[in-house]
């Protein structure tokens, strides 16, 4: 397996794991408080819709759109996505933003579902179905987006699908064992890593799209990953310093 294929598998795995953890929190909350059968049917419907999206858009993009346009548009979207993930991860790691708390989200979902009408004695519970399907569809849309982009731009649909499927199986397996929200998963660290990877691939592909002929070919991706990784770590350090500096200044000011 080439190093780029390996990085694709890892990127897809990490990005998918984050989204699957968030989806599982919603599914667990609905299943535990309402009805498992309707909840799982909702999950199945959402997964079918996502598979269809990946198949249709993945094929259509590869077949009908020139590769330079695909690289520019897809790379551009990856950069936009990567910057959103990475800046939030830097702010969270630096302490300037609250970290994602799956246990709190789970408790909020349970409280919200408690206000809904009771589960029907027989037949389908459409509230379970809709909430579970919506949760999986929304979280899964980002996974589908990443899988389609990797597949269309680098011909890496296989490795991207392998990474996403492995993440889904792992998260689902752990959720069944734990039978609760996966609060121990280091979501911020995962988002940090995924943000760096999306930025690396996105910059490379969008750069090719605008006509940049990268020196050393695909190996430039590894240099970009390293560059963004180092800058993001510097960002965390600066955010921490500015926060503690601000606290020190306020403490000194309040002393007078």
């Amino acid at each position, binding site marked *: 397996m080439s190093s780029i294929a390996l990085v694709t598998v890892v990127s897809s795995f990490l990005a998918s794991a984050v989204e699957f953890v968030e989806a599982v929190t919603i599914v667990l909350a609905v299943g535990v408080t309402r009805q498992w059968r309707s909840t799982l049917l909702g999950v199945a419907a959402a997964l079918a819709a996502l598979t269809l999206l990946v198949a249709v858009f993945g094929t259509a993009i590869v077949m009908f759109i020139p590769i330079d346009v695909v690289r*520019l548009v897809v790379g*551009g*979207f990856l*950069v*936009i996505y990567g*910057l*959103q993930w*990475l*800046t939030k991860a*830097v*702010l969270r790691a630096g302490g*300037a*933003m609250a970290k994602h708390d799956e246990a709190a989200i789970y408790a909020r979902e349970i409280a919200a579902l408690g206000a809904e009408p009771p589960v029907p004695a027989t037949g389908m519970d459409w509230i379970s179905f809709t909430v579970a399907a919506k949760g999986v569809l929304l979280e899964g*849309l980002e996974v589908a987006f990443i899988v389609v982009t990797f597949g269309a731009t680098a011909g890496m649909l296989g490795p991207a699908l392998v990474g996403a499927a492995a993440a889904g199986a792992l998260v689902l397996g752990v959720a069944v064992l734990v039978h609760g929200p996966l609060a121990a998963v280091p979501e911020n660290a995962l988002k940090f890593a995924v943000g760096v990877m999306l*930025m690396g691939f996105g*910059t490379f592909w*969008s*750069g090719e*799209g*605008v*006509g*940049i*002929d*990268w*020196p050393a070919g695909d190996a*430039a991706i590894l240099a*970009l990953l390293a*560059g*963004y990784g180092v*800058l993001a770590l510097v*960002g965390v350090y600066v*955010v921490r310093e*500015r926060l503690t500096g601000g606290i020190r200044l306020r403490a000194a000011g309040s002393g007078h």
Partner: protein
Amino acid sequence: MRFVRAFFGFWYDFLVGDRWELFVGPIAALFLAWLAVRASMPAPLAGVFLFVVLAGVGGVSVAWAMRD
């Protein structure tokens, strides 16, 4: 009408989110890189230029988020 608003609202949240500069910045960076390539900037330099501008957009966004 409500459906149309919800549809565009969803895609706005999905792509732009709560920090518009992270949507506009990369588009501007790619446009500048395209101009640089058209102006015959050497390939390695154009790549570094794109990397620096994108990293700058991220840095500015983090600084603005800290200020807010």
